[in-house]
């Protein structure tokens, strides 16, 4: 299962990198087109068409990426430590590639701005970019947690807390909130 998920993440990542490379090349081509002596209407049409097509494509990548992330999170608990680390590294690569891809349409829309063309679906593009960045940060934090092997500063207090949980010495969340928030609260001490 881990190999399948790793392969899915890798395939998605490779596809996204390839698309980002293609869109990078298109942006450079459009920069050249923008300065051509051809009629302005033709140049604008070319830029806007490319920006619209790339916007549509980038927005369609998020559901697929979210699917890979959900499946991976569900599987992480069943994987060995090396398998989980490998998968997380693959996911980081996928999300960082996605972030690069998500920035391409905006670069195209910027080229259309001097012609008084407003970008389409800018909010969705910004949300997509933010989501790729969030996913990359989350996968990096999870990988770092596993590599560093976090230890509590006070292992004895952790053991005592575990024992209190076993003994049922617990307070429900709403009661804990009420104890701190009660009128003229003196704290718990």
């Amino acid at each position: 299962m881990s190999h399948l998920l790793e392969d899915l993440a890798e395939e998605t990542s490779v596809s996204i990198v390839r698309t980002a490379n293609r869109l990078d090349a298109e942006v450079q081509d459009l920069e050249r087109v923008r300065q051509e002596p051809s009629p302005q209407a033709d140049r604008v049409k070319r830029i806007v068409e490319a920006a619209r097509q790339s916007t549509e494509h980038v927005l369609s990548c998020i559901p697929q990426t979210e699917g890979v992330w959900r499946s991976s999170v569900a599987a992480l608990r069943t994987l060995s430590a090396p398998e989980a680390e490998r998968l997380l590294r693959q996911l980081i690569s996928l999300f960082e590639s996605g972030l690069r891809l998500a920035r391409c349409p905006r670069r195209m829309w910027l080229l259309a701005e001097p012609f008084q063309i407003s970008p389409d679906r800018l909010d969705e593009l910004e949300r997509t970019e933010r989501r790729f960045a969030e996913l990359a940060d989350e996968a990096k934090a999870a990988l770092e947690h596993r590599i560093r092997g976090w230890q509590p500063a006070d292992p004895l207090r952790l053991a005592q807390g575990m024992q209190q949980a076993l003994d049922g010495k617990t307070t429900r969340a709403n009661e804990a909130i009420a104890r701190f928030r009660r009128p003229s609260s003196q704290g718990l001490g």
Partner: protein
Amino acid sequence: MRYHVEFVDLVLDYLAAVEGLTDEDRAAIVEGVSEELARDAEHFLALYPLAQEALCFRYDYAQATPTGVHTFDFVVSAHHLEMGVVTVVYVEHSVRPLP
């Protein structure tokens, strides 16, 4: 699925003793932690399991106050996750003064 969140007494005693917080701050921390764990405990267990306790996970929470940014590292037991309950069993704290 939403989980029921509980706190062991040691954790609440620790929070009560943290200097530079008001009781309203403490209530807000417990509320914020409970809300996030109720919603996403399984997600955190998958991403941040403790190497030494496979059914526990680390969870951090930050609270800004006029005295600084307080960061709390919690350990949460998911031993009763299947029954829809998670228990906060440990906390440690650090504070970074505001610039």
